[in-house]
């Protein structure tokens, strides 16, 4: 028997609104379809109204988990447009926070994966230990979620010797705990049984669908901006790109745990080599007309900000391509012919950040294939027309 089940816009497996519509036959998924647009906030338009410095705090709010990724990506680009170079110490501190954020994001993801697989004990443990890194971030920046440590030309807070020691101590604790998770993740039979072989994405598929981040790396595609196109000082630090060749959700879990260890390594190197000097330089208010593409390896994959400046103190255009968006096509493909029980796992395995990915409205006419981008006023006019012409309906079913 075939029937449709809606996953979302509201569903316990989803932390943010998105709609996946599935056609299932028994327990097997026959077809999947993704609808976006439940979390569109107009951030890009808002960015055009704000000054360079204000935009740092706006981009930080694109996402609640990888907030530092977006602000760093923006600041990297903006610094090029403003033609300034942050001092070494500033850079080191910026990317120290960036690596600590990766650690917190991956620990968070491990917990979510545990929860989606019905392994709540794992969830409770990882989130308890995530507090360690959250506390470190709070000590460094004063905040737990939106660190607000970036500024144009460096960072806003310095680090003293005492704090440096505390971070190193925290890293020791985290390392020990991560080893334990690696053991659990690779050996607990129900957990491994649920993850192994689920959501297979072959190397060729990963290339075809342009998968990014841990999703691509779990398929054996060693794609990491920190190695491929190193920004800041990443060509000076030693680390490996964690990959796996199992191409499934287990691989994505393993990649993330391995990346935790790489991040600990990077953090230790940063703290050991931390140069002296100022943490920021003064930035000009206006940027010459120019354009820049800023790439950054966020915890979820490659984050791209495209910025145009027009000689004023505001950007002409800011385009954000979050890693989640890049992973949607591959996700839809691997959902097909899977089990219903695997939906939350497959979907969670891309570590979806829906609010990151919601950018603009583009209408594609299903009959002619014609594409057009609509303004809000057009949409409102169309909606009103539709409401006037439609007969009143009662007991409306889900519109498949």
């Amino acid at each position: 028997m075939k029937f449709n089940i809606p996953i979302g816009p509201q569903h316990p497996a989803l932390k943010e609104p998105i709609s996946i519509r599935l056609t299932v036959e028994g327990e097997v998924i026959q077809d999947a379809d993704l609808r976006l647009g439940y979390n569109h906030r107009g951030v890009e338009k808002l960015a055009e109204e704000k000054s360079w410095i204000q935009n740092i705090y706006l981009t930080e709010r694109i996402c609640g988990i990888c907030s530092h990724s977006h602000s760093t990506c923006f600041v990297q680009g903006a610094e090029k447009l403003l033609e300034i170079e942050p001092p070494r110490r500033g850079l080191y501190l910026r990317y120290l926070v960036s690596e600590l954020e990766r650690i917190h994001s991956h620990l968070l993801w491990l917990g979510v994966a545990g929860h989606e697989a019905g392994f709540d004990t794992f969830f409770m443990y990882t989130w308890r230990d995530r507090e360690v890194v959250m506390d470190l971030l709070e000590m460094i920046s004063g905040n737990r979620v939106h660190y607000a440590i970036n500024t144009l030309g460096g960072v806003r807070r310095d680090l003293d010797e005492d704090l440096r020691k505390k971070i190193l101590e925290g890293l020791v604790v985290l390392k020990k705990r991560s080893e334990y998770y690696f053991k659990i993740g690779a050996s607990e039979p129900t957990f491994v049984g649920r993850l192994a072989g689920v959501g297979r994405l072959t190397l060729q598929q990963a290339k075809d669908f342009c998968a990014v981040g841990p999703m691509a790396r779990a398929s054996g595609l060693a794609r990491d901006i920190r190695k491929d196109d190193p920004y800041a000082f990443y060509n000076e630090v030693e680390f490996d790109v964690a990959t796996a060749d199992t191409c499934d959700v287990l691989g994505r879990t393993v990649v993330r745990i391995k990346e935790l260890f790489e991040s600990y390594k990077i953090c230790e190197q940063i703290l050991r080599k931390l140069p002296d000097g100022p943490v920021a330089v003064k930035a000009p208010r206006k940027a010459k007309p120019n354009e820049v593409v800023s790439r950054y390896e966020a915890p979820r994959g490659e984050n791209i900000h495209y910025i145009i400046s027009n000689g004023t103190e505001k950007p002409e255009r800011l385009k954000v391509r979050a890693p989640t968006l890049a992973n949607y096509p591959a996700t839809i493909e691997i959902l097909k012919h899977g089990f219903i029980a695997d939906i939350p796992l497959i979907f969670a395995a891309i570590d979806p950040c829906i609010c990151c990915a919601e950018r603009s409205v583009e209408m594609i006419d299903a009959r002619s294939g014609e594409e057009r981008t609509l303004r809000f006023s057009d949409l409102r006019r169309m909606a009103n027309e539709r409401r006037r012409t439609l007969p009143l309906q009662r007991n409306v079913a889900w519109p498949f």
Partner: protein
Amino acid sequence: MAVLNTILYLVVFPGLLFLFVYSTFVEWFDRKVYARLQNRMGPTHTGKSGVLQPIADFVKLMAKEDIVPDLADKKLFSALPVIGLAVVITAGLLLPVWNIDLAAPGPISFPGDLIVILYLLSLPTLILFLAGWSSTNAFSIIGGTRVLTMLFGYEVPLFLAVLSPALLAGSWRLAEIAAFYRAHPLLILVNIIGFGVALIAVQAKLERTPFDIPHAETEIVGGTFTEYSGKKLAFFRLMADIEMVVAAGLLATVFLGGFGGGFLSAFAQFIVKTLFVVFLLAVLRAVTGRVRVDQVVSFAWKWLAPLAVLQLLIVILIKGFVL
């Protein structure tokens, strides 16, 4: 006096009143153990250490709005929680707790009550399936079919595992099985494999992690219970709690020597032994993740059923050569 005892047996212990109070206590115990294993606090607020929390949950649910879907079969949908509760309470009465005369079988203890209690414990599964099916919700229907699919996996191993101690004791009457093992405590060790199998099968019957597949919230929202709310949901939850007590009591009777002596002694043994079983179930819940429904069936037939048969074989050999 016998009449009074029977009335006490039906209404107070182990009847309605006791089953209600004790099942909420067991739920609290289970939640607390589960929480402590996860490095959490568990219920703390209501009563001492949160011991009244399950009762508070029950009362709160009873007061909530009760919604019946328009398309659902209304009579069936409303009757199922009550039938389910009645079935598990009846099963609870068959536990040989006290006031059992081994020489004279009565309405609460008779040869074959082992089969009756297993049958009564199977009914809630069918009731959950019907509940899912009659709600006419996509998630409920999937939940309902998952309930039935799992049934094919764990039911046979459970029956085999529970029947082997009965074979060794040479009786199909719970009270006699328990009395046999109280007389020969060492023979309890013979059934240790069967106890493990029965424990896992009971975990599946109670739909707890790793077998909480019919109501896996991250996959199919509430599963079977998606459309249930208010009083009906409260009844279903109470049914699940009492089912846990009865299942733990059954395992304690068959595998752990039952509950001997007078009222007080039987009462104390009942509490200690059922809590021990529930503790094992809670640990099992904490250390595992949810498996897939096809994995349950293959696991049950690949491991549980052969192990149960092995247990049966051991029992037959021991009965033939040693006893």
